[in-house]
């Protein structure tokens, strides 16, 4: 699924400079527990979380994830967005809760 589709489905706001309409994600993981995320092994994955701190970006970076969606209206600070930009990770923010966000993406075929 292209990030452009993710943005549309979640009515998400794009933050930072690593976003690319055509960047593709093949799997998604929704969690506020980073250790659970670190146990999730999929290529070109998208992380959805309501947790906002620098370790979210570190975790995504270690897992080679392509994008992070901050749910429930959470907007990360500039320091966190900069860290993601350095790692080439796109950052999105949606007002939707985690469950609904995951459900929308799943229903549209992001369930590898």
């Amino acid at each position: 699924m292209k990030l452009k589709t993710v943005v549309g489905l979640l009515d998400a706001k794009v933050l930072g400079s690593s976003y690319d309409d055509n960047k593709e994600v093949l799997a998604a993981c929704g969690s506020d527990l980073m250790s659970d995320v670190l146990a999730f092994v999929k290529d070109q994955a998208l992380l959805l979380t309501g947790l906002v701190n620098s370790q979210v970006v570190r975790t995504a970076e270690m897992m080679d994830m392509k994008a992070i969606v901050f749910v429930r209206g959470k907007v990360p600070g500039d320091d966190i967005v900069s860290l993601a930009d350095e790692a080439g990770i796109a950052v999105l923010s949606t007002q939707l809760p985690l469950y609904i966000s995951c459900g929308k993406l799943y229903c549209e075929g992001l369930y590898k």
Partner: protein
Amino acid sequence: MSSFKVQYTVDGEDFSIAGDASRKLKKVLQNLGVAPQIIRKATVAMYEGEINMVIHADGGVIDVEITPEKIHIFLRDKGPGIPNVSLAMTEGYSTASDNVRELGFGAGMGLPNMQKYTDYMNITTEVGVGTTIEMIVNTAV
């Protein structure tokens, strides 16, 4: 590629920069041309160890030796030690504070994840003295 060694000091005072050493190792491994899936295994295992060092042991030192065959990681701290290693290896078991859990860690997956991503792991620990964790990730894909 001949043997390559790096050492990182982990600051136990600042949780926001925890993971910096693992991030640096990732760049080193990328520059050495190590396969991406091997890099992921090594850096995720080290990242979990690094987080544990900050949460439980007030920091420590990480030594990494990279050879054509393997990535050899030693995590050494002078923290409280692990009283019961087999219990600590149980998924879901954690002694982390609520404050740490609010930051997204302390779910009791750290040590199990480290074992999952490595080809060899050995824990040497003494209560009141500290802990050394040795991990090996084979570089053959």
